[in-house]
């Protein structure tokens, strides 16, 4: 087990098998490259895509006439001045063709009886623009459809349960990765002519989150250590109405968003009053407040003693009526009943939870990082959504950026002549491991999640974040530099150690970027600097040795 090594090689190596990774794999393959698609989880089971319930924003213009420029305008507005315009343009202009491609691949978008694609109006969009798959099935359908397309291309080599330790950079370019098998612990080296990071976001840094287990920000840490830059790391999106109580099993905690799209619903404080109008535009029974505004409003109600018993607010559909509920959500109503919830009789409690990361790896519109041969796509990329992401832009981004990255990485691979032995890389030494675990990384991860929620969550202050930095440093010292060597088959503790190694680095980036932004903007809210400054800057980070360097750019 320990000491065993398997070596593989490919043209384009894609790390992460959500919508971005699978789209990149398909595109790179169709561009003529040899492709390997790897994931820390089982292929197509982990990540965020499979968890997405609705919706996908794209100006397909079948519900009502639409134009991608209007989608772009809404995206830029929601981003509060911080969107990378070129990335946002790519996202909005290519989203319709990505949606149609998925339609050809029979994803099953909801349609009107005359065949037009149905679209719903999500907060921040100026018209109904978000397509979906019923019922609450958008993510699983997208995932399944892409997976089928990947499988049809039998030349795409898929390997699951492979945890990447580091990207190997030799002679100034990415040359592959060092990884280990989650199942048997062996070290795996993969030589590649180009590498695409499609690992999603960092929501696992927070105690309450809507993520899969493998979303601890590993791609950001891999990119940083490879010499790439990160941008806008302070902008973590909190989903305002994550399910809080009563305890619900077998349902994604972000399920209430689609309910609100279709049925409106009322967000109430403990006085039974709709309060959103006190903070932003009135909802008038429609669902209009963007995620940043709604999150702040809910936290303010709770802080002022008007919260629900579990520390959130109420969401009520009691006025909607059973027939309409059932028409809109059919079998989901039965799943709620199995959990003892009857929406005609009771409200549920909801509260913000970490959901998405606007920040991420800095890329150009070809999805290239500043490290030759290294690309990124999907949520792993930063900048397209600025300080706040519009509902529906995440899957569009994954499909569009994934496709772009796949094509570009294939082009790059075709130009690259290489024969690299990554066996001697430092990462191999780290991957092999040096000793026994003398800490419980699972417990440290929980400690980290609590710390981040409390001190670098939706509300932040200088005092809180300064103490967070010292706590992060203490945790780093506690876990040590040497990975434990594999102790058994499926060594979850060892996997936790490598996760924690990445999570601590990425958490430090979030806190440092948030400390440096002495204003409030979008998802980044400072209690000590509550106003939005007109000094619009971006925070760009890179690693020098062990030190995170922060550069401020206009």
């Amino acid at each position, binding site marked *: 087990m320990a000491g065993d090594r398997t070596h593989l090689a490919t043209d384009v190596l894609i790390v992460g098998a959500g919508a971005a990774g699978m789209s990149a794999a398909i595109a790179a393959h169709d561009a003529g490259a040899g492709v390997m698609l790897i994931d820390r989880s*089982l292929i197509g089971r982990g990540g965020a895509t499979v968890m997405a319930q609705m919706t996908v924003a794209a100006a397909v213009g079948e519900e009502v006439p639409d134009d991608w420029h209007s989608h772009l305008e809404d995206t830029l507005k929601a981003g509060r001045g911080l969107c990378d315009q070129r990335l946002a343009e790519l996202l909005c202009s290519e989203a319709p063709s990505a949606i149609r491609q998925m339609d050809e691949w029979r994803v099953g978008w909801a349609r009107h009886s005359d065949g037009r694609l149905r679209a719903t109006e999500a907060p921040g969009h100026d018209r109904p623009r978000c397509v979906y798959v019923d019922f609450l099935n958008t993510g699983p359908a997208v995932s399944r459809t892409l997976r089928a397309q990947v499988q049809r291309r039998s030349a795409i080599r898929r*390997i699951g349960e492979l945890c990447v330790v580091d990207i190997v950079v030799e002679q100034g370019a990415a040359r592959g990765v060092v990884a280990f098998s989650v199942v048997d612990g062996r070290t795996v080296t993969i030589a590649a002519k180009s590498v695409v990071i499609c690992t999603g976001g960092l929501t696992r840094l927070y105690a309450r989150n809507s993520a899969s287990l493998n979303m601890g920000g590993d791609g950001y840490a891999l990119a940083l250590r490879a010499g790439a830059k990160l941008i806008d790391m302070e902008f973590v999106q909190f989903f305002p109405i994550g399910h809080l109580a009563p305890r619900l099993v077998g349902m994604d905690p972000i399920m209430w968003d689609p309910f609100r799209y279709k049925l409106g619903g009322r967000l109430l404080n403990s006085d039974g009053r709709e309060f959103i109008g006190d903070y932003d535009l009135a909802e008038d029974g429609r669902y209009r407040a963007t995620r940043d505004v709604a999150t702040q409003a809910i936290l303010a109600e709770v802080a002022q003693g008007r919260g629900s018993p579990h520390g959130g607010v109420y969401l009520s559909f009691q006025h909607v009526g059973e027939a309409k509920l059932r028409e809109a959500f059919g079998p989901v109503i039965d799943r709620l009943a199995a959990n003892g919830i009857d929406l005609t009789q009771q409200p549920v409690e909801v509260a913000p939870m970490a959901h998405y990361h606007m920040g991420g790896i800095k890329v150009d519109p070809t999805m290239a990082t500043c490290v030759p041969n290294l690309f990124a796509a999907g949520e792993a990329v930063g900048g397209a959504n600025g300080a706040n992401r519009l509902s529906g832009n995440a899957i569009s981004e994954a499909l569009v950026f994934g496709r772009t990255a796949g094509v570009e990485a294939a082009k790059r691979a075709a130009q690259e002549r290489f024969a690299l032995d990554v066996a001697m890389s430092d990462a191999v030494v780290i991957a092999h491991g040096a000793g026994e675990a003398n800490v419980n990384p699972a417990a440290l991860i929980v400690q980290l999640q609590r710390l981040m929620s409390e001190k670098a969550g939706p509300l932040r202050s200088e005092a809180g974040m300064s103490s967070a930095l010292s706590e992060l440093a203490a945790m780093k010292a506690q876990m040590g530099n040497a990975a434990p060597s594999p102790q058994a*088959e499926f060594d*979850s503790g060892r996997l936790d150690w490598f996760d924690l190694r990445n999570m601590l680095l990425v958490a430090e980036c979030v806190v440092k970027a948030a400390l440096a932004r002495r204003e409030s903007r979008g998802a980044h809210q400072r209690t000590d600097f509550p106003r939005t400054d007109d000094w619009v800057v971006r925070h760009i980070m890179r690693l020098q040795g062990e030190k995170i360097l922060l550069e401020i750019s206009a």
Partner: protein
Amino acid sequence: MTLKATLVVRRGAGGAPASWSRFDVDFEPGESVLDVLRRIRVEQDPTLAFRFSCINANACKECMMLVDGKVAYACTARLEPREMRVEPLPNKKHIRDLVTEIAPPDEKLPRLR
């Protein structure tokens, strides 16, 4: 309201003789078997191995195991205030503890010599 349960969990590597661990746990009504397994790793035994990915959504289908002899998803099986027995799936190759081999054959690494 805090309730008490005892989880009796099959341990050990594939092919090894069965051994069992008993974990006494406190839980809130409504919590799932997976909630408590995750807490055992944090508070009692970080070496306990089981599969899961999506935590609560029942989207990833990774946490399938035997709960009191019946095939169930740990994320939707509710914990009850009594002794409950948790075992790996019987019809899959056993890897360790509650983990079985569920990856499709063409998505695995080449076999080690």
